[in-house]
């Protein structure tokens, strides 16, 4: 039973990692930027959800606001900050590194801002669902209605993205714009705008992650930092370019953490993330689903 219990714990946290990984991969695919600010953006959108909940007293009503907020914040970051940055530093090595540094700076900025507005207190953004595990027979499993919503919600979001990329023309345009910008422009695609749409999708995914995971812990300006690390490791495991890879990477990492926690101890979990990251980079740098040329569809 212990094995199954551990697996369930892992799936629940893995689903959240997968969402964060998805957010990072969506931005990476559309603009070749590792968006460290994603943790900050998700924090902002979660505070927005918190504010909506303190007015409506309804967790479920707050979620769509958090998602739309997350999408809007991401669109703003890309359209206003990243795009003008790209115009000013589009040549040489600085063009590669400037956007990444900018996202790091933005993460710090958002943190300070949220600290100024909401303070550093641990706020409660609570879900009405029970965090008490289901009981099967006489055994109570470590999987609660809260966990169930996390897993189902995460899978739902991933399904929506998969469908968009696989079956819609928008998905086709998103892929075209990220991998063949010149061809896309010649086909009449407004590449800049489409990239902003990619950022918005990423922001929405990150917002879902923030809104789902926060009720299991607390809300503070840096409460999602560890999630950013896990999401990044999951994205790398998955090949950084692959949406399916991000999901698999997240689930694998979640389950891996759960087993480390169960069988080795709590003290090593944080370092375990980095050890796994380094192992992946050594053994299979293109990730489990990354293609040889670093490009791949959904």
């Amino acid at each position, binding site marked *: 039973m212990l094995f199954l219990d551990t697996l369930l714990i892992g799936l629940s946290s893995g689903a959240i990692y997968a969402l964060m990984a998805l957010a990072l991969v969506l931005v990476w695919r559309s603009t070749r930027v590792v968006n460290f600010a994603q943790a900050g953006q998700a924090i902002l959108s979660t505070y927005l959800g918190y504010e909506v909940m303190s007015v409506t007293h309804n967790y479920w009503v707050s979620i769509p606001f958090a998602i739309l907020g997350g999408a809007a914040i991401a669109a703003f970051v890309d359209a206003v900050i990243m795009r003008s940055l790209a115009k000013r530093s589009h040549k040489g090595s600085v063009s590669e590194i400037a956007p990444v540094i900018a996202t790091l700076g933005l993460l710090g900025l958002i943190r300070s801002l949220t600290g100024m507005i909401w303070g550093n207190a641990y706020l409660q953004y609570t879900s009405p669902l029970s965090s008490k595990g289901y009981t099967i027979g006489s055994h109570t499993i470590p999987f609660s209605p809260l966990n169930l919503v996390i897993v189902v919600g995460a899978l739902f979001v991933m399904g929506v993205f998969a469908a968009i990329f696989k079956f819609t023309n928008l998905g086709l345009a998103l892929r075209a714009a990220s991998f063949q910008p010149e061809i896309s*422009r010649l086909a*009449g695609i407004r590449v800049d705008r489409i990239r902003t749409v990619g950022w918005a999708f990423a922001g929405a995914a990150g917002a879902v992650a923030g809104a789902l995971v926060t009720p299991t812990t607390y809300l503070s300006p840096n409460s999602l930092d560890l999630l950013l690390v896990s999401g990044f490791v999951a994205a790398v495991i998955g090949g950084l370019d692959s949406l399916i890879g991000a999901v698999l990477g997240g689930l694998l990492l979640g389950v891996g953490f759960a087993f480390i926690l169960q069988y080795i101890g709590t003290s090593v979990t944080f370092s375990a993330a980095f050890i796994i990251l380094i192992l992946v980079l050594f053994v299979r740098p293109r990730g489990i689903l990354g293609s040889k040329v670093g490009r791949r569809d959904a």
Partner: protein
Amino acid sequence: MGSSLLSISDLTVKFGGLTALSSVHIDLHPGEVVGLIGPNGAGKTTLFNALTGFAPVSSGKLTLHGEAHDWPKSHQLVDLGIARTLQGVGLFPDLSVLENVMVGGQRFAKGSVIRAALGLDGSNEKFLSEKAAIALERVYASSLGEKRADALPYPVTKRVAIARALMSDPKILLLDEPAGGLGSQDIEWMNGLIHNLKTDTSILLVEHHMDVVMNVCDRIYVLNFGELIAEGTPAEVRENPAVIAAYLGAEAVK
């Protein structure tokens, strides 16, 4: 021939201190196939790039469909009836051939992002895939729609890239070395293909293969070191001493 579809005059393109094109003019009339030839570095692709928003225009006038026009940005071309293929072909390896071609029809897919995200643009999808199937037929590749693009032999990818360009219903088609890297059998196909396309679109062609150029072109412009050194029918150009000296040389005699 009537009035010209596309008319470029006094086009100059400078990259820093280097003059890539110097006061070049070109006319393309409805139903024409016009060739643009010259040795490597003569400025052929630069002219395409200037016309398609990939290279900065230092000076020059552009007339499209009889009216003066600003130099277009890349994404505006399809709405001006201009489509272009690239030398590098640029298919998406992991997409099906049909999906690759559908990318070219984005000007017909201007529904809202929200509707598309919700999967409400089904009719749009259907329209594009049917149109893509027709475009594939026109390049003799109708049976290949479901294949992955990376499963295609190179000569076929060249034709699929043309099908993608046809998706926007261009009146002016810019082909960048369509016969580059092709063997003689595939070059025959390409000749036939270009002749067939003429019925719907005028074509401006950059090409190194002289047999293709001489076979399909109604008129030819010859560039050398960024300057126009000759223009005329294939026969005229072939016999032009300046052209022979600059470029054709051994190949023209062949």
